[in-house]
């Protein structure tokens, strides 16, 4: 093969042709690749870039500090206490088991807890920070911090936890927080992500839940770059959290403390409100409990004790307890009669001790009767027959309407849960709800605040404030939010003639300041502070005809929960009213004996804003009072009261 033949040329040519064809095919494929490249990188680039950002960037939440709650003078009621805690990062510890064992030499850290932490830790990635111990005291925390270099992976940290420095006294008003539960989340229409933050606290009761949104604040965010395993590489940007708003209550913690102290171990409620502004000075329900126990979950023993206590410590009786107002309702009935012109100051009713309607006999609390009674005396001596009689003339509709003007039968607008509206019955109401027609006897029962009529202590306090001021006072619990005063609207006049009010107020004054007045024994002796009031004793049981004939059983002889409720409402000073008060002692016996003394003492405390001078008390009880004061907590000091000694 020396000389290239024709066939050699042919061979070469064919490789050329096939080579070019192959090159062409290859270029076509490259073209497809180029088109696809363009499609991905130019046409659809934006959407892919977005996906890449989503991949890469994790938003971490920075929890806000929960807003603080103060009393009207700025004393803390709910605060955030540093929670000294220890966390561990597994990959930094290398031998976490050994590190935890070392830690146990410094602080109290039992082995079963170590095992628990280890178990939890090994379920998570190695770089995740796992809480090891929480709520250390400062000494332990300092010890761990000092030894941290010898404990690889251990991170001493300070978090914030809710703390209530005045345990028991504000439990019902402020409530408490706890970890966010599934139930909390399911109750929200649009749960914000911060609620899922580990250890985040959420309002469970009281103000804490009702103004949760205000107290919570807004979470900050930290945008971090993460790798595919979720490990944080670096922080890209950060927006700080907005802390929750600080709340200043109208409540005076000294007065609140005192009210709680004064009610002692009884199942009772006391409300003090400012007659002119409606600011609530005290809103105390007894017995109470320590809300701090709930923050990290209460033990089932403690919980069951609270749940099964017949004094119902879990309930806020000031707003959710609906009691028959008893005789404290008589002012409303009197005003209704006066407004209708059905009676005047001179009108007299004879009280023989009973009142017959058809074949039913209604008794006055005073078996022998009061004799001739006018309006003023009927209040002073709390004659029932007088009200039986005039209620017949007015009718239930007018009584109920008047009661509503005083805030009864309507839910007061307060940022608290479970507020009762009480009940001011009408004929229509009974027909609808009891499915029976209204009877005369119902009106008679209603006239003395019994039967269907019911109201809560806060409603009675509002009623009394309105009686004292003649204006539609609205209660206010929150004075300032983040230092900004909440609007205080001037209360409208109730539109009741002063003359009518004067009559009723005079009667209330005589209750407390004249001999034979039902609260004379519990008067305020200091004339400039004199209190006008009204006692109430409301039955919780039916007294049968037989019992009536044999003699009504005395309260002391009845089981606790059959005894009468004791009530007292009042305002002071009479000449220039500042505060209205209502006190309800559940099954306390009589209003004058059980409720009035408490009301007087709390009222004095409110008026003097400290321990009142002994001269403010009636002469005959001053020695007793001096003795009582030995045990009284000094003003402005929170004194938790041991409640375990109650039988």
């Amino acid at each position, binding site marked *: 093969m020396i000389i290239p033949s024709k066939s050699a040329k042919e061979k070469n040519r064919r490789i050329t042709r096939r080579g070019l064809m192959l090159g062409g095919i290859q270029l076509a494929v490259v073209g497809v690749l180029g088109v696809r490249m363009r499609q991905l990188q130019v046409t659809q680039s934006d959407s892919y870039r977005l996906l*890449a950002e989503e991949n890469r960037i994790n938003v971490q939440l920075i929890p806000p500090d929960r807003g603080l709650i103060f009393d009207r003078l700025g004393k803390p009621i709910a605060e955030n206490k540093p929670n000294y805690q220890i966390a561990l990062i597994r990959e930094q510890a290398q031998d976490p088991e050994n590190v935890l064992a070392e830690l146990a030499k410094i602080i109290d850290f039992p082995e079963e807890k170590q095992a628990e932490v280890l178990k939890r830790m090994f379920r998570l990635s190695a770089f995740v920070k796992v809480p090891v111990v929480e709520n250390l005291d400062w000494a332990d925390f300092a010890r761990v911090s000092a030894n941290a270099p010898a404990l690889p992976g251990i991170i001493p940290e300070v978090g914030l936890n809710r703390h209530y420095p005045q345990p028991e006294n504000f439990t019902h008003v402020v409530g408490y927080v706890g970890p966010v539960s599934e139930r909390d989340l399911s109750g929200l229409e649009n749960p914000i992500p911060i609620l899922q933050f580990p250890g985040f606290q959420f309002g469970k009761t009281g103000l804490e839940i009702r103004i949760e949104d205000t107290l919570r604040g807004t979470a900050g965010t930290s945008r971090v770059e993460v790798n595919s395993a979720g490990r944080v590489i670096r922080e890209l940007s950060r927006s700080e959290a907005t802390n929750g708003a600080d709340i200043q209550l109208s409540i005076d913690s000294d007065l609140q403390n005192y009210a709680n102290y004064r009610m002692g171990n009884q199942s009772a409620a006391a409300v003090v409100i400012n007659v002119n502004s409606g600011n609530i000075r005290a809103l105390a329900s007894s017995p109470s409990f320590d809300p701090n126990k709930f923050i990290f979950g209460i033990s089932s023993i403690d919980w069951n004790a609270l749940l099964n206590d017949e004094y119902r410590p879990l309930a806020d009786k000031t707003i959710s307890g609906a009691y028959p107002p008893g005789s404290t309702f008589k002012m409303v009935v009197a005003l209704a009669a006066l407004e209708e012109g059905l009676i005047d100051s001179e009108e007299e009713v004879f009280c023989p001790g009973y009142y017959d309607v058809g074949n039913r006999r209604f008794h006055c609390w005073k078996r022998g009767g009061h004799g001739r009674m006018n309006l003023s005396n009927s209040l002073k001596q709390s004659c029932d027959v007088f009200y039986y009689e005039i209620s017949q003339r007015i009718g239930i509709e007018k009584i109920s309407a008047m009661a509503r003007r005083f805030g009864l039968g309507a839910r007061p607008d307060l940022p608290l849960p479970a507020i009762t509206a009480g009940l001011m019955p009408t004929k229509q109401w009974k027909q609808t709800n009891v499915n029976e027609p209204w009877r005369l006897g119902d009106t008679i029962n209603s006239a003395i605040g019994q039967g269907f009529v019911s109201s809560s202590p806060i409603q009675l306090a509002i009623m009394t404030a309105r009686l004292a001021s003649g204006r539609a006072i609205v209660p206010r619990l929150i004075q300032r939010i983040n230092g900004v005063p909440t609007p205080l609207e001037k209360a409208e006049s109730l539109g009741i003639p002063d003359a009518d009010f004067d009559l009723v107020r005079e009667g209330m004054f005589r209750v407390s300041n004249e001999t034979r007045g039902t609260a004379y024994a519990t008067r305020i002796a200091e004339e400039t502070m004199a209190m006008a009031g009204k006692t109430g004793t409301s039955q919780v049981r039916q007294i049968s005809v037989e019992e009536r004939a044999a003699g009504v059983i005395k309260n002391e002889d009845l089981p606790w929960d059959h005894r009468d409720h004791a009530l007292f409402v009042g305002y002071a000073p009479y000449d220039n009213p500042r505060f209205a008060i209502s006190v309800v002692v559940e099954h306390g016996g009589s209003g004058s004996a059980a409720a009035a003394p408490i009301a007087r003492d709390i009222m004095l405390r409110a008026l003097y804003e400290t321990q009142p001078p002994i001269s403010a008390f009636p002469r005959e009880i001053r020695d007793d009072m001096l003795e009582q004061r030995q045990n009284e907590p000094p003003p402005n000091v929170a004194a938790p009261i041991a409640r375990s000694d109650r039988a």
Partner: protein
Amino acid sequence: MSFMDPNASLPPTGLKKILYVNWPLVMLIIAVSGFGFLMLYSVAGGSFYPWARPQMERFLIGIIIMFIVAFTPISFWRSVTALAYGFALILLVYVLIAGDVSKGAQRWIDLGFINLQPSEVMKIAVVMVLALYYDWLEPEKVSRPIWVIIPLVLILVPTGLVFFQPDLGTAILIVLSGGVVMFLAGVSFWYFSAAISVVAGTVLAVLQSRGTEWQLLNNYQYRRIDTFLDPTLDPLGASYHITQASIALGSGGISGRGFMQGTQSRLGFLPEKQTDFIFTTLAEEFGYVGTTLLLVMYVLILVFCILSAINNRNRYAALLIGGIAATFFFFFAVNMAMVMGLVPVVGVPLPLVSYGGSAMLVLLGAFGLVQSAHIHRPRGNL
């Protein structure tokens, strides 16, 4: 036919050979590899280790090998072709029996400084042996059935061995490379039509056999097919690779995020970021401009090879260059198509760019063959 053509001027000898090297091709190879070093440096988070530095060292060794091969006369390589093929075949059998288990497949022979992948060697050896075969065979006979069966056996025996390693990607590449040499040699189009029909039938059979006792592929291979056909099946599972690769590619945009600014690969969203999926990092950091530049360089390498092949009157040399060029083409085309979601994920690296000593050394050696054929091509007028 030989290069000892008395009418042609003699091929260069000694140091003169340096002048006859296809320098543009060398420059392109260096440029593409340089691109690769940058990417390996970047995916390591701005570090020469663990990838860029070893890759550069191997590249140096590879370049030296390339020039040694290039300066050795093509006639020598022609004469050792059968030996090379036989040796590669023995290596393949050896790894099947005793190879290291790596990623569920027995593919490597540990030579100490490098993990040799015999299937890589075989890709070139198949091209060489077929070039020799068609150089020996008279062109008139190439389409006769008896003369078609021999090259088919030469292709399918090593293909089978690779397929059972199992390494589907390389097996397909061997078939394709061999097929290209047959195509260049002038085998009738009918055979290729028939082959394509057979492949289509086989694919159907493979899919049909799934779940039966005679299932033809491993489950992981079926899953790859599944996810290719429908990447949304399991975005965090099997199709994760494809989805994340598309995100990386797309997020690069026209100009890219900039060198070292890619997030997808460095943050670990991409699998095998330094090997099969390195193109995504390149796309993310250098954008459409960068990927197009790489594609253009690849195409230029192809163009230089094909021009060299069709101008080479030595049939063995021409077929060899064409076959190697085609192998190179299949490498980058399959890799890019795979990363861009056009074909299923098969383990094919991006040539000269992906981290991996074996593939790079073999490829540079192959380019040495191309250069040798180019330098020692027959010269003179016909």
